[in-house]
């Protein structure tokens, strides 16, 4: 799980061009949107694409979005629960 959390932080920083942030700057339970690290609605779409491309997981119910993308840990939990073949480099 810790490897997945670290990998997610790196992927999100790269994919969303969060050049002012390092993985250590993002708390595992820190909210990703608004009052947290300040992601917006376009970023949410990018996170959906990231799940599809990197983890082969399609968010089937849009109403799950706020819960799944609440924090890095909730994303990792969702990936773990929905993927049998998570691609995480050691």
């Amino acid at each position, binding site marked *: 799980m810790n490897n997945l959390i670290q990998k997610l932080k790196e992927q999100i920083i790269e*994919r969303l*061009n*969060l*050049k002012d942030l390092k993985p250590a700057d993002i708390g595992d339970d820190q909210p990703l949107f608004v009052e947290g690290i*300040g992601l917006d609605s*376009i970023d949410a779409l*990018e996170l959906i*694409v990231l799940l599809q*491309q990197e983890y082969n997981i399609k968010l089937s119910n849009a109403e799950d979005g706020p819960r799944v993308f609440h924090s890095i840990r909730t994303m990792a939990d969702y990936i773990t629960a929905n993927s049998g073949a998570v691609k995480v480099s050691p």
Partner: protein
Amino acid sequence: MQPARNITASCLISRNKIFKNGQLVFEHPGTAEVFLDKIYSHFAISYPKFHKMDQLCKLGFLAAEVLLNETEHSKKYDETETGLVLSNAHSSLDVDLKYAQTIQTGASPALFVYTLPNIVIGEISIRHHFKGENAFFVFKQFDGNFIAEYVNGLFENKLIKNCICGWVDILKEDYRAILFLVETDHPENAMAFTAYKLNQLNQDHE
């Protein structure tokens, strides 16, 4: 009688150099991407959203930052009093091509939102809280006659009290932004806002 309009500030970004009011203020070697990011850090701008912008928005954003720096613009005008009239030759083609490439593996929403040239006006407006008249035109080349006529129309219809106008264009490594601040003020170094002067200032840096 309408008050005289003057060009009270200008900014040119081209070929790894920045000129503010005709004076070289910064230069740095490297690709367009490296150069634009270097401008951001050199002028100590703090605006995290900058890193998410496409190259056209970065170019226009930075040109507006340098143009308005030390002008006290935000203190002089209400948010609805500033016009933004921009133009270029390549529309949003630079990011359009990048977006098209992502379609092969999964279209990027973050790129898609920049696939219109007038988004650069939106980014500048968000940064400076502008809510005035704005327009973006695509021409084959810089057209001072059109810009002067259009901006003068906005002034004469009392829609604006000042205007940022000019050219913001980029395609891969070929980039150029030249912006002018037009006001009814007439400070010491101001130049009359005319089509002739716009074309002349643009050609001076060709």
